[in-house]
């Protein structure tokens, strides 16, 4: 990522061909770029933009169970959602889930990247293994975790009993909060590889002469870490953190597979809550309102990030 920091040569833009200066050809040349981007624009317009507009419209409308818009409802859906008894809990869960998973996986992923950046025998194998959780679909990952932590027949209990660490089967999920903590652990587990590989790509582009110079000057390991490594991989970390905030905030399969948000919304986040509202309870207007609320929260985070990076850009 620090490739970013070094100024890349700006690729020369293609100059238009010299022949053909007739007005028709010039007009064609002017619209040419739009022809090139047209398929992509149409694809995203139909399958992303229209759903976005549709969700916003529904959030402001009175919607029937079948999804038919019956009329304008102002902020009615939002008021209903916010006043709903579970909403506070769901919002709190969403924040805990997002912050815990992103922060812990970033710290652990960063440390793992530092470790894997050393030269040692079997490094290639280790890196190939670490990538596993990233490649595995979340539903399966969550199913296995659900199996491992089961009280009656889970392999975690079996393993610990065989090793003599525990004598009796432990109930790993005595409370909904405990279950939620396991979901967070699973989330961290699957998010670490992405952070690790982003940081690794940053680490590998750091010029080793910096470290050599620092060693000559008598810098110790921690000084080198905080004065050289961290500043130079900061951009990689920012990219991975921002993407992770978005992905984790919107992550559905882990919680859905492990608890479906039960019992009584104790493990629900905004996305599982809105799924149930829309497809179990037929309250699509309210579900759309939850979508919009989630989007606004993310938008605030993204704007803060944009302002932060833009200001940093001015400093340079």
């Amino acid at each position, binding site marked *: *990522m620090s*490739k*970013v920091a070094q100024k890349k040569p700006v*690729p*020369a*833009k*293609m100059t238009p*061909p010299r022949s053909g200066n007739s007005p028709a050809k010039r007009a064609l040349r002017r619209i*040419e*770029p*739009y022809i*090139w*981007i047209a398929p*992509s*624009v*149409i*694809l*995203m317009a*139909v*399958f*992303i933009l*229209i*759903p*976005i507009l*549709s969700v916003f419209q*529904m959030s402001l409308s009175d919607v029937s169970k079948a*999804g038919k818009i019956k009329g304008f409802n102002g902020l009615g859906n939002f008021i209903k959602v916010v006043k709903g008894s579970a909403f506070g809990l769901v919002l709190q869960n969403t924040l805990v889930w997002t912050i815990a998973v992103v922060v812990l996986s970033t710290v652990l992923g960063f440390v793992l990247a530092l470790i894997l950046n050393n030269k*040692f025998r079997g490094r290639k194998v*280790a*890196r*190939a293994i670490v*990538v*596993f*959780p990233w*490649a595995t*679909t979340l*539903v*399966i990952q969550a*199913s*296995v975790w659900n*199996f*491992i932590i089961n009280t009656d*027949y889970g*392999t975690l209990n*079996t393993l610990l*009993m065989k090793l003599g660490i525990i004598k009796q089967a432990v109930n790993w999920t005595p409370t909904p909060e405990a279950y939620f903590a396991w979901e967070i652990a699973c989330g961290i587990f699957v998010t670490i590889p992405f952070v690790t*590989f*982003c940081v690794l790509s940053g680490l590998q582009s750091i010029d080793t002469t910096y470290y050599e110079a620092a060693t000559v000057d008598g810098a110790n390991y921690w000084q080198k870490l905080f004065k050289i490594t961290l500043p130079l991989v900061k*951009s*990689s970390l920012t*990219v991975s953190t921002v993407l992770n905030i*978005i*992905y984790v905030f*919107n992550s*559905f399969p882990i919680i859905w597979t492990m608890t479906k948000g039960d019992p009584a919304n104790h493990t629900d986040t905004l*996305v599982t809550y*809105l799924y149930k509202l829309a*497809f179990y309870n037929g309250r699509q207007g309210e579900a*759309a309102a939850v979508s919009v609320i989630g989007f606004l929260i993310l938008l605030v985070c*993204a704007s803060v990030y944009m302002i932060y990076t833009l200001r940093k850009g001015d400093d340079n």
Partner: protein
Amino acid sequence: MNDNAAKKPFSIQKTVLRILLYFVVIDVCIITLYPYFAMFCTALKSRAEIFSPHGTILPVTALWSNFIDIWSRAPMANYLLNSILIAGGSTIIAMLCGIPAAYALARMRFKGQTAFLGFVIVSQMFAPVVLLIGIYQVMLRLGLTDSLLGLIFINAAFNQAFTIWLLRGTFMGISAEMEQAATIDGCNRLQSMTRVLLPVAAPGIVTTLIFIFINAWNEYTVALCLISTDTNKPLTVGINIFNGYNMIEWQYLFAASIFAIIPVVILFMCIEKNLVSGLASGGVKG
């Protein structure tokens, strides 16, 4: 002699650090692989053995027949075929739309360029799950609910951002001089792109298409919501047939899961190195 004395403490410290390094790396690998190990062992056990109060780690007798039984107990062949069609179809459409767009962004200047790139980035903020209600409405109108084609379009659309992001970075890293020369030799834009640029950009393109393929293969939420006919389900959704409310057939669930995991893990290991550098360089200053 002097030399040795000076070297010795240094090398002891180094050895300790080495051992510590290996210790941590091996632990990380064991923890990472443990779920897969548990999955594989369970896939080979009988139902009785899994639920027995005297738990086992390795299966007492390996029941390889579980891997065969799943094909008759569920429409696994359908699931597998659907996953291949969805992932393959999404990849083709995402590339057909994404390559020209990335090319235009990398090689041309036009009004609305920033706006387009801005929308591409903002579209990342909407996960399909947040837009499911809207997506469902669009699919109803197009008659694409419960169809593979619908899923293909959705996956292709939601992967456009990544496709354009990765390919634009790749194209911008390649000098335009060769294409300019080709243009002077009488090639038009399309020819100069397909004959000159794309072969040079092949590694980046392969990385991108494998990445889309994996994303579409692993997609769960939209398929769960849109597909109702059992034989239209992809693996990620279909295998939950073994994960019923009353009875969970763990051995079948995990045997089927292994079929869903292996192709992706192999593909991922092929592109892991390129993918990350691509992600990083494509993201430069939007």
